[in-house]
C-alpha cells in the first residue's frame, strides 16, 4: 500500500469510516430492491416514516432496539477480549428457561417489581452458564470458541424445543409454548414517555427493559474503560502474549469475559418474554443474537455506538414491517440482507475504504495524517 499507515483524526475513525461503510451497505441493498422491481428511494422513505413517523412506530423501534442493545453489548464485551461470541443467540434462547422458571413460580404471588429482579438474575445466570462451557473449553482445552458457541446454539435450540413441546407446555394446549404469565410477571410499558411529547400510541410493547438496557450500556462502558478487569480484557484482546507476560491469568480472563457476555445475552430474553409475549415460545429470539454481531461491529464495540446502531436496526425492523405492508415484494427478510451487508462492509471489509480516506485527508492536510514524518524520512 502506498498510502502511509497513519492515524486518522478520531472523528473520521469513529464517524466517517463507519458512515461510509454503512452507506455502501445500503447502496448495495438498494440494488437488491431494484432487482425486485421497486424504487429504492421510495422504499427508504416508507421505512423511515414507518419507524419514526408516528408515536407507535417510535415505541416499536425502541422496543426492538432494546433487544439489540443487549445482544450488541454481549458481542462487544467478548470482542474486547478477542473472543468472537457467535453464541449470543443460544445464550439468549436458553435464558428464556431461567425466566420461565422464575415467572411461572412467582407470577401469582409477587408483584412485577419483585419478579423482575429475580428474572434479571435468572436470565443473566443461565446465559452466563451457557457461555461458561465454551469459555472453559477455549481456555483449558484450546477448542475454538467460534465453533463451540455455534454448536451450543444448536444444542440450546434442541433443549428448548424439547422442553417447550414437552414439560413446559400446559397439558391442554397445542402450541409449543409455556402458559401465559399473570400480572406478576408483566413488565410496565414505557409508552407514556413518548406520549409526554404529544404523540399518540395505540399499543406498543416498549417496556422498562429499555431502561435496563441503557443502564447495562453504561455499566459496560464502566467495565471496559474504567476498571482493572476491563483493562485486562482489552490487554488480552490486543495481545494474548502481552497479557500473559503481564501476569494476567488467561483462563480467568476468558471465562470472566464470556460469562459477562453470556449474561448480557441472557438479559435480552427479558424484553420479548416479559415485556411483550408474556410467555416463552419456540424461537422467540428469532435471530436477535445474530443482529447483535452487526450492531456491535457497526457501533465499533463502544456502548454509545452500540445504542445508536441498535436504534438503527430497531428502525429497520419496525420500518421493515411497514415496508412489507406497502411493498409486498419486499418482505421482512430484506432486513436480513441489510444485516448481512452491514456485517460484510462494517466488519469484514472495514478497512476497504480506509486507504482512500487517508489519501483524501493527506491531500488536504498532510500533517493531520502524519505525512510530514514520512516525507522527512524520505528526504
Amino acid at each position, binding site marked *: 500500500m502506498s498510502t502511509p499507515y497513519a492515524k486518522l483524526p478520531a472523528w473520521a475513525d469513529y464517524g466517517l469510516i463507519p458512515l461510509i461503510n454503512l452507506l455502501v451497505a445500503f447502496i448495495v441493498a438498494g440494488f*437488491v430492491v431494484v*432487482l*425486485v*422491481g421497486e424504487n429504492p428511494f421510495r422504499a427508504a422513505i416508507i421505512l423511515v416514516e414507518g419507524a419514526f413517523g408516528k408515536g407507535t412506530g417510535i415505541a416499536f423501534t425502541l422496543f426492538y432496539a432494546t433487544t439489540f442493545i443487549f445482544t450488541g453489548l454481549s458481542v462487544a464485551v467478548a470482542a474486547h477480549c478477542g473472543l*468472537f461470541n*457467535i453464541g449470543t443467540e443460544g445464550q439468549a434462547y436458553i435464558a428464556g428457561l431461567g425466566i420461565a422458571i422464575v415467572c411461572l413460580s412467582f407470577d401469582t404471588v409477587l408483584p412485577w417489581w419483585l419478579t423482575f429482579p429475580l428474572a434479571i438474575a435468572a436470565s443473566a445466570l443461565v446465559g452466563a452458564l451457557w457461555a461458561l*462451557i465454551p469459555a472453559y*473449553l477455549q481456555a483449558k*482445552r*484450546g*477448542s*475454538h470458541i*467460534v*465453533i*463451540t458457541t*455455534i*454448536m*451450543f446454539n*444448536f*444444542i440450546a435450540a*434442541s*433443549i428448548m*424445543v*424439547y422442553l417447550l413441546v*414437552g414439560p413446559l407446555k400446559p397439558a391442554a394446549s397445542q402450541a409449543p409454548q409455556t402458559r401465559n404469565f399473570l400480572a406478576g410477571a408483566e413488565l410496565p410499558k414505557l409508552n407514556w414517555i413518548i406520549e409526554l411529547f404529544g404523540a399518540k400510541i395505540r399499543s406498543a410493547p416498549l417496556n422498562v427493559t429499555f431502561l435496563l438496557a441503557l443502564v447495562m450500556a453504561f455499566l459496560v462502558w464502566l467495565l471496559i474503560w474504567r476498571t482493572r478487569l476491563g483493562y485486562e480484557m482489552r490487554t488480552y484482546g490486543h495481545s494474548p502474549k502481552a497479557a500473559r507476560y503481564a501476569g494476567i491469568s488467561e483462563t480467568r480472563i476468558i471465562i470472566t469475559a464470556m460469562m459477562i457476555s453470556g449474561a448480557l445475552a441472557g438479559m435480552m430474553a427479558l424484553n420479548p418474554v416479559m415485556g411483550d409475549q408474556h410467555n416463552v415460545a419456540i424461537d422467540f429470539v428469532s435471530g436477535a443474537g*445474530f443482529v447483535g*454481531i452487526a450492531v456491535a*461491529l457497526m457501533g465499533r464495540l463502544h456502548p454509545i455506538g452500540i445504542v445508536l446502531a441498535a436504534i438503527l436496526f430497531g428502525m429497520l425492523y419496525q420500518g421493515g414491517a411497514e415496508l412489507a405492508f406497502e411493498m409486498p*415484494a*419486499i*418482505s421482512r*427478510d*430484506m*432486513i*436480513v*440482507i*441489510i*444485516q*448481512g*451487508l452491514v*456485517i*460484510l462492509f462494517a*466488519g*469484514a*471489509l*472495514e*478497512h*476497504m475504504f480506509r486507504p482512500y480516506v487517508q489519501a483524501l485527508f493527506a491531500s488536504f492536510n498532510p500533517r493531520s495524517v502524519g505525512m510530514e514524518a514520512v516525507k522527512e524520512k524520505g528526504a
Partner: protein
Amino acid sequence: MDVFNAVIQVLDSTVRLSVPLLLACLAGLYSERAGIFDIGLEGKMLVGAFAGAAAASVFHSALLGLGMAILISVAFALVHGFASITHRGNQIVSGVAINFIAAGSTIILGQAWFQQGGRTPALGPGERFDAIVWPGADAVRNVPVIGPIYAELISGHSILVYLAFLMVPFTWWVLFRTRFGLRLRAVGENPAAVDTAGISVAWLRYRALICTGVLTGVAGAYLSMVQNGGFVKDMTAGKGYIALAALIFAKWKPVNAMFACLLFGFLDAAAIRLQGSPLPIIGKVPVQFMQALPYILTVILLAGFIGKAIPPRAGGVPYVKER
C-alpha cells in the same frame, strides 16, 4: 426379515442425507486446508440450492441448473475471498455476513421472481436429476440379502450421489498426490514458506475458495434438485454447520470426512425413523436429542476427549507479506 429391511431403509436414507453434508464438508476441507476458515458453507449451499432450482425451472434443464448453482456459489466464495484474502478482513465475520446475505436474498428474490412464498416452482421431469437404476437392479431385488443391498443401497440414486462419493478419493488424490494439493496444504500451515518459494499465497487461496464454491454449489443443487424437487426457504437448515462439525470431526481429512458425514447422516436418518418409538434397553429417546447429537459429539471431540482435532496452523490468519 423385517428388521433387515428396516436396516436397509435406514442405511438408504443415511446415504441420501449424508450427501449434502459430504459435499459441503469436502468444500470446507479445501478452504480450511488453505488457511481460510469458512463459516459461510451454509450460505453458499443455500444460494446454490436457490440458483439451481430457479435456473432449472426457468430453462427446463437440470444441467443448466447445476451450472448456475455452481456459478452463484463460486461468486459468493469469491466475495469471501475478496474480504478475507484481499482485504485481510476477519474470516469469521465475513462468513457470517455471507450466511445472512444468502438467507435474505434467496427469500426476497424467490418471492419477487416466482411469487410462491419464497419457493421456486416444483421441478418437472428433466428439470431435476433423476435416480439412475443400475443394470439388473430389478432382477436381483428378490434375491435375499444381496438383492436389497444392490437394488436399494447401491442402485437407484441420482448422479450427484455417486459424484459426491467419488469426490472423496478425488479430493484425497488432489490434496496428497498433486503439486497443487501440496501447495494448498502448505499455504494453510505456513504461508510464509510458500511465499518464499515464489508462489502467490493470495492466488492459491483464491483457487482453494473456488473449489469450495464449486462443491457447495453441487451440495445446494442436490438439496433443491434431487432431495426436494424445488427450493424452499432456509432449506439448508443448519446443514452447513453440521458439515463444519463433520470437518472437525474428520480432523480435516477427506476419507474421515466421508465417515463423519455418514455417521451424522445416520443419526439424522435414525432420528426420522425412530420418531417416538422406543429403543430396546435405552427406552424412548427424544428426537431433539438425536438431532443435537452431532453437535454434542463435535463439542466433546473439540474438548479433546476423543482424540485431538488440530486445525491447519495458519487457519483464520490473514497473510501479510513482510514489508
